[in-house]
Each structure stands twice: as structure tokens, then as C-alpha cells.
């Protein structure tokens, strides 16, 4: 099965020499444009959003990016199957990505083959497609198969239904088989959580049962929110006077927008909690959203503003540092 090389730099529109900060900025910018909630074409927007996420998953991680760069240098179009780049796995292990083809998970085969969770999954290490690897005869249960599924925060909030396809080569040289699964993503799903599709893994031998298929949840990165358990965090940019005097700010939430009262004297790094605006917990309640204050400073001041700052500097008794 040919695995097509993905140009993640092109996906994010950055140079190969881009700094981590460039990559982060490019991701945020594109993720805002193509986020399914704002994109004009919801379906196309979601596909693009997941593509951007996949690219950032690799390029935003220094270790994965290094591996990707090495892989790209050695990749020969047309050889496919992972043979054109680095060896499969770190050794002779077979990976699901190299013989199973997933659709609808939000990750490409290329990602699944080289950076997917199944890379280290035990299910992938049992020899070729469930064949006995211990020489103890031919009654052998099928191997478990694992793949990542990308889930947006909105899906984690409300739950969703996903159509996942799995194409597997036939064992006896006949037609490929493609299975289509309707998978319910429950509200409140966590990063790394596995969803089991019983008996849909590798075929068993000698009348033994088939293995299971496990989908491992990877939460898509959101341009505005980061996730910690059931809680969400977002940056709240404030002007210095807003931090000092307080302000009523409109901020985005996963549910829409809300109004937040920033109290007077809010220091940079302060976390303002918005109760119940996080992700669902298992018991049905919801985590919280924390707006983390960041004091922003104007890059330049106008001729009218400068005297005001100077006047403030001259009359203020505030000392941010201890005098040594």
C-alpha cells in the first residue's frame, strides 16, 4: 500500500527553516480561519482544520519534527509503504499503518504510519497480521489494532458521531475489504482515551477470536483554548490600564462568548475562573475555563500618549522591583 508523503511545511505555509514560534503563529492563524465553527463551508473547513492540526502535531513537536525532516530527506515518491523513508518502526515490526488503511479518523495514513499512536502499540508488534510469532502452533487470537482519532474540543463538549473506515488487504489475495464503522464519540472524552471496537482487529488463526480495534482519542488543538483535564485555559490580553483599573471584557468560550469582569489590579499571569465553561466530566458536570491575564504593551506611543505615561511615571509610587 503506497503511503503518500505529506508536506506539512506547505500545509502550514512556512519555510523549512521556520522557528518554532513561526510555526505556532502559522498554526494559530490558519486554525482560526478554518475552524469548523467559523468556516463558511463547515465540511471543508473541518477537513482543513484537521489537516492543519496533523501538520502542527508533527512540526510543533521538536522531536517529531526532526524525525519528519530526516524522513523527508530520504523519501522517494513512488516506493510507498514506508519503504522509501525510514524503516518501519525501529526494527522489523509491522505497523497497522503499513497494511491497514484508515479513513475518517482525521489523520492521514502518512501520519498513522510514522507518527501515530500505534507506533508503540502492542497490537502492532505481534508479527504479521496476527500470525503466530511464537512458533507454538496455529491457534492464535488476532492481534489488537490501534489507530488515533482526532477529536475537536467541540466534539468533546457535545459528543459526536464519526464514520471511520478501515480497509484491509485480504489474506488470500482476493479483494480488499473495507469496513465502515459508526463510532459515537461520547461527550467528555479525554485525551488518550481508547474506544474499543470489539472483534474488529486482526483475524484470528485456527478458529481463535479476532483482535479488537482501538481508537485512541487525540484532542485537536484549538487556536484559543488549551486543555488540562476537564479545564480549559485561554489567554486574556489586557492593556496596562485595564489591568490596573479593571475592565469588562468579552471573551470567547467553547459555547460562544461571554462577558468577564476583570477586577482592578489584575497582575499578569492571574487566572480568572469561569465556572462550568470547560469540558464535561464523567459525572456530567463541567470543568472550568481559566482566562490567564497577559499584560500587553503598545509597541510605540503617539506624541499625545507619551506625556501621559511620563506624568504617570513621575507621580506613581509603585515599585515593581526590590531595590538591591
Amino acid at each position, binding site marked *: 500500500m503506497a503511503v503518500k508523503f505529506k508536506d506539512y511545511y506547505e500545509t502550514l505555509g512556512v519555510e523549512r527553516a521556520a522557528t518554532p514560534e513561526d510555526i505556532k503563529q502559522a498554526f494559530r492563524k490558519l486554525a482560526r480561519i478554518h475552524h469548523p465553527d467559523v468556516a463558511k463551508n463547515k465540511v471543508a473547513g473541518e477537513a482543513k482544520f484537521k489537516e492543519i492540526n496533523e501538520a502542527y502535531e508533527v512540526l510543533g513537536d521538536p522531536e517529531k519534527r526532526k524525525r519528519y525532516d530526516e524522513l523527508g530527506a530520504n523519501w522517494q515518491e513512488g516506493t510507498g509503504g514506508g519503504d522509501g523513508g525510514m524503516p518501519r518502526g525501529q526494527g522489523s515490526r509491522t505497523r497497522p499503518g503499513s497494511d491497514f488503511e484508515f479513513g475518517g479518523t482525521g489523520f492521514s495514513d502518512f501520519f498513522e504510519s510514522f507518527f501515530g499512536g500505534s507506533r508503540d502499540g*502492542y497490537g502492532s508488534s505481534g508479527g504479521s497480521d496476527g500470525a503466530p510469532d*511464537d512458533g507454538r502452533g496455529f491457534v492464535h487470537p488476532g492481534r489488537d489494532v490501534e489507530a488515533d482519532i482526532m477529536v475537536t474540543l467541540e466534539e468533546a463538549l457535545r459528543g459526536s458521531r464519526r464514520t471511520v473506515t478501515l480497509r484491509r488487504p485480504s489474506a488470500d489475495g482476493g479483494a480488499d*475489504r473495507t469496513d*465502515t*464503522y459508526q463510532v*459515537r*464519540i461520547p461527550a467528555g472524552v479525554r485525551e488518550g482515551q481508547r474506544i*474499543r471496537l470489539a472483534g474488529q482487529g486482526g483475524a484470528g488463526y485456527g478458529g481463535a477470536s479476532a483482535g479488537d480495534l482501538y481508537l485512541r482519542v487525540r484532542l485537536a488543538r484549538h487556536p484559543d483554548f488549551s486543555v488540562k483535564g476537564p479545564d480549559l485555559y485561554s489567554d486574556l490580553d489586557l492593556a496596562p490600564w485595564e489591568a490596573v483599573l479593571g475592565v469588562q471584557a468579552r471573551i470567547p468560550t467553547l459555547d460562544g462568548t461571554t462577558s468577564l469582569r476583570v477586577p482592578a489590579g489584575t497582575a499578569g499571569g492571574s487566572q480568572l475562573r469561569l465556572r462550568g465553561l470547560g469540558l464535561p466530566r464523567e459525572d456530567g458536570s463541567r470543568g472550568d475555563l481559566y482566562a490567564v491575564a497577559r499584560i500587553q504593551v503598545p509597541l510605540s506611543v503617539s506624541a499625545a500618549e507619551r506625556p501621559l505615561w511620563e506624568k504617570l511615571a513621575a507621580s506613581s509610587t509603585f515599585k515593581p522591583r526590590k531595590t538591591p
Partner: protein
Amino acid sequence: MINFVILEKHSLVLTRAEYPGRSAYSLEEAAELSGVHPDMVRYYVRLGILGEGSLRPGVEPIFDDDALYELRRIEHYRRNYGVNRSALPLISRLLRDAARLEAELRSRREP
């Protein structure tokens, strides 16, 4: 379970019934589905390597898909790699720690 079968040009396409996404298994069910003896399952529960779902005090443990995955993984190592029972908790814990750290690193790298 199979709803309908379509024959495409070169491949057989099967559509299957919906998968619930979150499951709960009793100890006996988890033991049967993983091929691990119920006493061993209890032993793993005591060691705390099957996740929080299996550790609610005072109530019969309930296993989710993650716990079942863990059990099947343990059984796979025992059966195919000859890992002995006392080493299994160690391996399981190392793998879980690695996964947890990876997830934490990932969330710290959030843009």
C-alpha cells in the same frame, strides 16, 4: 451486526452497527474478554494499574475500554514474550507513565 454489504469495484464494503464509544464491563466480563483469570484481574486492580474506573472504594469495580485495553496488553506480553507475572505491573506502569508524560508534554506545547 452487519447492516448491508456493497460490492465496490475492487473491494468489499461492509457497514456495521454503531459503536457506543464508552463501555462498562464487570470484572467477570473484563476477565473473559481479555483472557486474564479473574483472580489476576483482581490482583491488577489492587496494584492500581487499571485506571481510576476500576478503583471506586466499596463498589464492585467497573472496567472501561481503557482498562480492557490494558488487560489485553498485559496478557499479550505474558503470553507472547514470556514476561513473568511479577514484571508485568512494572512494565504496565512504565508504559502508562510514558503515555501520561507524553500527553502532558503535548498539552504543555499547546499553542
